[in-house]
């Protein structure tokens, strides 16, 4: 069975998340105010929790909704589209870490959305531990951070942070700090071999794909209504061809991401390979589409009044979560490609 189309049930999940986000986290929240306000997305997380977003992929026995990674990926893509604070992604992953590491109580708490987990972006991905320097994203007053290294993924509690220093963020809608994690092996961790990093990677890919798609949608919408020289600018090949290329790129990103997730679900031997390829393609799509979307908007795209710039900045943040493109390229060459045999899955 080769089916990469959403089932009606999956479509319903996506629709309900999208509808909630449209309601509570519309792009209008980014319109600059006279006095800048910090990111308020986390205040809506309990509503996302109620909808099941954070426990979507956990089994019902463990208190989750009981879907697979695929549904989580579908939802993460919507989070990307709406530029939801990436703490949402870290929280989705954190739930699995807590559960797998033997703290179901914490898993339950994280699922409710009241305890957002801050993504911790490693300066260098350590091979076999979690200690080192990280950037903490939107983690002001967070209790937990999600650390990710080649050793696996881990939840690092506030008590184990040190040298926390807030720094000016490239994305002013996301608080940023430098922090040091001292524990080599936090208690709440899942080692890389267990494959949870792939789920984390694919949620990041889905978010980046969502960013790439939203940037495309933004361009297309604008190109249909914005007129210059007495016609919609979408009629000019310069614009329309760029939009076509954007779609090609985001389609490849999405198909790679979902293909990798489906490969993971059936425990395909090439699951690592696909997850790394997906990250490279999703990251590339997000960066390029975001930049082209600014170009398509002209001066308006360069302002802070429209949210186009946030697509670029989120691409930078998420690219680094789990290792940036330079790092992924190294891993891509080290990965085992699908063998001829594995074609027969």
């Amino acid at each position: 069975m080769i089916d990469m189309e959403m089932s009606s049930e999956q479509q319903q999940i996506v629709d309900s998340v999208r509808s909630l986000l449209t309601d509570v986290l519309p792009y209008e929240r980014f319109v600059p105010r006279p006095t800048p306000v910090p990111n308020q997305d986390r205040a809506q997380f309990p509503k996302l929790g109620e909808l099941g977003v954070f426990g979507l992929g956990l089994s019902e026995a463990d208190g989750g909704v009981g879907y697979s990674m695929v549904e989580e990926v579908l939802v993460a893509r919507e989070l990307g589209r709406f530029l939801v604070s990436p703490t949402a992604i870290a929280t989705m992953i954190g739930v699995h870490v807590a559960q797998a590491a033997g703290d179901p109580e914490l898993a339950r708490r994280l699922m409710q959305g009241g305890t957002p987990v801050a993504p911790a972006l490693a300066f260098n991905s350590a091979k076999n531990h979690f200690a080192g320097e990280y950037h903490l994203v939107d983690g002001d007053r967070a209790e937990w951070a999600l650390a990710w290294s080649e050793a696996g993924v881990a939840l690092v509690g506030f008590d184990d942070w040190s040298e926390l220093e807030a720094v000016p963020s490239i994305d002013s809608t996301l608080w940023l700090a430098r922090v040091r994690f001292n524990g080599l092996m936090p208690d709440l961790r899942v080692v890389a071999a267990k494959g949870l990093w792939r789920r984390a990677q694919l949620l990041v890919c889905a978010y980046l794909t969502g960013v790439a798609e939203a940037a495309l949608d933004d361009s297309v919408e604008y190109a249909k209504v914005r007129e210059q020289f007495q016609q919609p600018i979408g009629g000019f090949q310069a614009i329309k061809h760029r939009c076509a290329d954007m779609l090609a790129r985001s389609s490849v990103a999405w198909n790679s991401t979902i293909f990798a997730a489906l490969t993971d679900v059936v425990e395909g031997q090439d699951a690592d390979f696909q997850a790394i390829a997906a990250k490279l393609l999703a990251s590339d799509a997000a960066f390029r589409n975001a930049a082209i979307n600014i170009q398509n908007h002209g001066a308006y795209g360069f302002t802070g009044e429209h949210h186009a710039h946030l697509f670029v900045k989120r691409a930078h943040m998420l690219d680094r979560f789990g290792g940036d493109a330079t790092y992924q390229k190294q891993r891509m060459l080290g990965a085992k490609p699908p063998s001829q045999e594995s074609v027969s899955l």
Partner: protein
Amino acid sequence: MQIEFTRQEQAFRSEVRSWLRANVPAGERPIHSDRNLDIREFDLEWQRKQFDAGWAGISWPSEYGGRGASLIEQLIWHEEYARAGAPRAGSCFVGLSHAGPTLIARGTPEQQAFHLPRILRGEAVWCQGFSEPGAGSDLAALSTRAEIDGDHLVVNGSKIWTSYASVADYQELLCRTEAGGRKHSGISWVICPMDTPGIELRPILTMVGPNDFHFCQVFYNDVRIPLANVVGEINDGWGVANATLGFERGTGFIADQIQNSELVERLIAMARERRGLDGLSAAIDDGDFASRLAMSRAEMAGVRAMTYATVSRAANENPGPEGSLVKLFFSEASQRLRRLGVDLLGPEALELSSDAGLTTPYLRSYAASIGGGTSDVQRNIVAERVLGLPRGPRP
């Protein structure tokens, strides 16, 4: 959503694989050059072999003699076919993938009864006669005209970029049967026997090499074709020609995609073995090569994922213009990859290779963004039909 082949599909794959393993011709396909009849013989023989084993017309409905395979089975077939290194359909391609399906969709029972078996059994070679010197991307601007004279059409004009014209028995020929009127109407789709008097061929050299005559220009000088050879309604040839667009439902690129995936792996292996510029470390230790190899590996994985997605969508609904998306991305990704191949090769890239080498496929890749609709045309299609952007200002 799911990607897991069923037991039946796995069984189908095994069957295909073992049959191909045992039957793929050992010799290389002859070079496709000017009036090379060997290639016709080679292609037809391979087609006959497939026919005898029941594989001919893998996508054709069984009531027309085809295999009637499901779309997933077709995907499996094409994957195994490419991985087994089976020869391209070559001169049988147009018959199997375009003319045949068009006859199935719009032909008369007589036309079907005569031609379909010949195509499947490897008895007839077809070629295409759509493009003209003055009508390339603007295909519908074609001007080859056919006047009705009794029960015949009399054709005058010229077609171009016709592959295998010199070894073909029939041609699917688009010509203008009604002057004036709108550009897309007044065209007819005609079966043109290539041995009709008045047809002349001019082989066209490609940039790939001094013997690479991939195309012909075809000239028609008072060529008389029976009216009975018109397929579909007269003057409705544009509709007939488009009846089978998307017939391949996303399977059309599988062979190329697998070939390119295999090329990436070959290049990675080569970069591990060959020394880099400094003569000491391996070429893959050069971060520039490494970065390009990694991206190409990812891109080819992406194209495969996209192909699976297209096939799975096509299984549910009619394929839309999304095929243009795959082509757009794939053609540029494969051009990057093949350029990477010659860059890795260094000095030896200056030596023209066989098709199994790197230089010849590199040169051939220049056609990827041109043939079958240029990338510009694909971008127009994607932007207008998928994204709903306005048509450009055209007169």
